[in-house]
């Protein structure tokens, strides 16, 4: 029988981890929900963001939080350029065209990463110094608490942006009905450019956060893409709140599940949940067939 204090500890660890999963999935969910594009390069953009933060920290001594902001901006610009100069040209050519382009981009980013930094994991900690925090019988890692808080702020910020700004309103309108949005004077091409920029920018920020906790190598993109997919399916495509809840469910299930089943079952647990949700509630916990927030 597993001790209750151990379950409590794992529950808290799972919540902290779930926040990171949520922010890693947020950009994927937005792009999927609003543009109907499965960004297969999302994980690799996350990897690029991580390396931006690692580079800034290692070479210039820039704090990880500032590194995260820079990573967001770099990937935001990269995402906008991607939409403007590449994806825009293949939209309307069929569903598979953007997927092929993004799959190629993922492979390209992975190869460039391998050439520039090698295949070895960057396990050097760039985390935030600080003492562990005691919560009852549990101990929480300070860097994880900080990254969790930042993750929640990012998620709430994204929600507020979509909810309360004119651009956010235009994005939601475009997601609901792009033709109607065009008739109402919204430049949907620009909206798509901003949306992909936002989605990839969030991937960059998530990568910078992950680099504070976990080793990064040019191949991590695929594993985070799969986790992000699981979170999106759990929470519902395009739902900001659903992404947060999906991330938390995944993090908690993994951490508590391994107590009973063993660490080798971590990925099995997450993908079993993923498949079950697909079967029982394909549009996710918070999603709807219409998409959008």
């Amino acid at each position, binding site marked *: 029988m597993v*001790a209750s*204090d*151990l379950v409590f*500890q*794992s529950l808290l*660890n799972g919540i902290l*981890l779930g926040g990171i999963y949520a922010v890693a999935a947020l950009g994927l969910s937005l792009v999927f929900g609003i543009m109907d594009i499965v960004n297969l390069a999302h994980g690799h953009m996350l990897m690029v963001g991580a390396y931006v933060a690692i580079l800034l920290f290692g070479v210039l001594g820039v704090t990880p939080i500032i590194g995260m902001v820079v990573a967001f901006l770099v990937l935001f610009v990269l995402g906008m350029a991607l939409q403007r100069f590449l994806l825009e040209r293949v939209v309307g050519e069929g569903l598979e065209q953007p997927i092929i382009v993004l799959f190629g981009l993922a492979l390209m980013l992975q190869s460039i990463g391998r050439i520039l930094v*090698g*295949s*070895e*994991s960057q*396990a*050097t*900690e760039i*985390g935030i110094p600080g*003492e*562990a925090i005691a919560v009852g019988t*549990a*101990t*929480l*890692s*300070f*860097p*994880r608490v900080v990254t969790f808080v930042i993750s929640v702020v990012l998620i709430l910020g994204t929600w507020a942006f979509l909810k309360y700004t004119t651009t956010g309103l235009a994005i939601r309108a475009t997601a609901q009905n792009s033709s109607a949005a065009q008739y109402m004077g919204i430049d949907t091409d620009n909206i798509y450019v901003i949306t992909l920029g936002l989605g990839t920018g969030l991937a960059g920020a998530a990568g910078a956060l992950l680099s504070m*906790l*976990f*080793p990064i*190598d040019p191949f991590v993109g695929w594993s985070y893409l799969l986790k992000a997919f699981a979170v999106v399916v759990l929470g519902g495509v395009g739902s900001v709140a659903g992404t947060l809840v999906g991330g938390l469910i995944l993090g908690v299930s993994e*951490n508590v599940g*391994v*107590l009973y089943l*063993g*660490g*080798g079952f*971590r*990925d099995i647990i997450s993908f079993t949940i993923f498949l079950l949700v697909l079967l029982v509630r394909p549009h996710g916990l918070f999603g709807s067939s219409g998409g959008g927030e």
Partner: protein
Amino acid sequence: MVDSDVPQSRRRYLKTLGAVGAVGTSGLAGCTLIGGSGGGEGTVTIAATVPETGQFSSLGNAVKQGYELGVQTMNEELDQDVELIMQDDESDAEVVRQNLNQITSDNQVDMIWGSFSSLLVTAGSAFAENQGLPFIGAFFAFEGPHRNEGYEWTYSPFPKSRDVARSTRGLLELIPEEERPTNVGLWEPNSGWGNEQAQYWEDTLSSAGYDVVMRETFSLGSQDFSSLISQSESANVEVLLSTPTPPGGITAINQMQSNNWSPDIVKFVRAADPTAWWSALGEKGAYACMCPGWVPGLTGGGNDTLRTMYEEEYGLEEGQLIRSPVGGAYNVAQTAMQALQGADSTDPGDVQSALRSEEFETVIGTFSFEDNGLPAEGELTAPTGQWWEGNQHTVYPDVDGPGAIDFQYPIPDWSER
């Protein structure tokens, strides 16, 4: 542990006698003769791959140095030239096979040397078994393939899982009995070797009176050790033993610090082998133990020669010690050299017979092989090293060579480090 660098004259005498006999037989067979028997023609060609890039690249360069110094020694000791054809295997088993295929297609290869880690060494070994070529590989503790794959050509002069467990028990016994920790925690990677090593640890330490209070599996490549850390703390683990990859081990230590937990003793076999350990962790990496096959501090068996050659060839800065994979790789070359001398031929069958029958004296002690290529149980030295002030030092066995130190125990709390 071996205690002398002086060659064994009796054995050399017997080998010379044997070589005289071999001149006739192998001459008829057209084989190349080796050793001090009058000399033969040609070159001994050895194929090898090392991980210069990829997940094991932080060790690849040290392995390469050890092989190169070993070939230098072979060229001095043998009458024939030794050529080592070495390529980067990118830490990828498929690349190991491709490289060896290419080298053996383009050259008359007499022997193959292994790479690093069970993953890559077994790939090279499988190739050598198919080709019927002698294969000598270190950095490969997994015993399973030796027992299950029907090895005929693979020989591993390296501490195996049972030796690692023996070394761990010896390490713990350095601590006075009244202070000795008893609670052992095992973090078991879900791999064949991970399971085998954990089982040896459990059996060996349980029978010696230790309590294995935790044994939990994790996925090799996992980046989140928070559950294992919580479980270890809850089980009051005092001695933590595991076999993670180098990035995994480094991440685990970082997460132990951020969770404010550490045991009294940490032994991360293979994870703490590379210099990347200290580069990534600095003082946080101190106290970590490993069982890398060779550690600076061992004496005899050519250790003095190795040290001198290394300093001449690569130089050592003030306070810097030779990296452990150098010695492990040099030991491969010493084994190969003595096998060739024992065989007095490069004929694969003769070398195989020598590997099965000879006794070898290298920087990791004196040992022989079982027919399945395992080092005979309990013979070679399985030193435990410990990171201290930026270097790996021998802490077990209790030797007095340059680089040996007293076992640093217990690991203080993070707040006191």
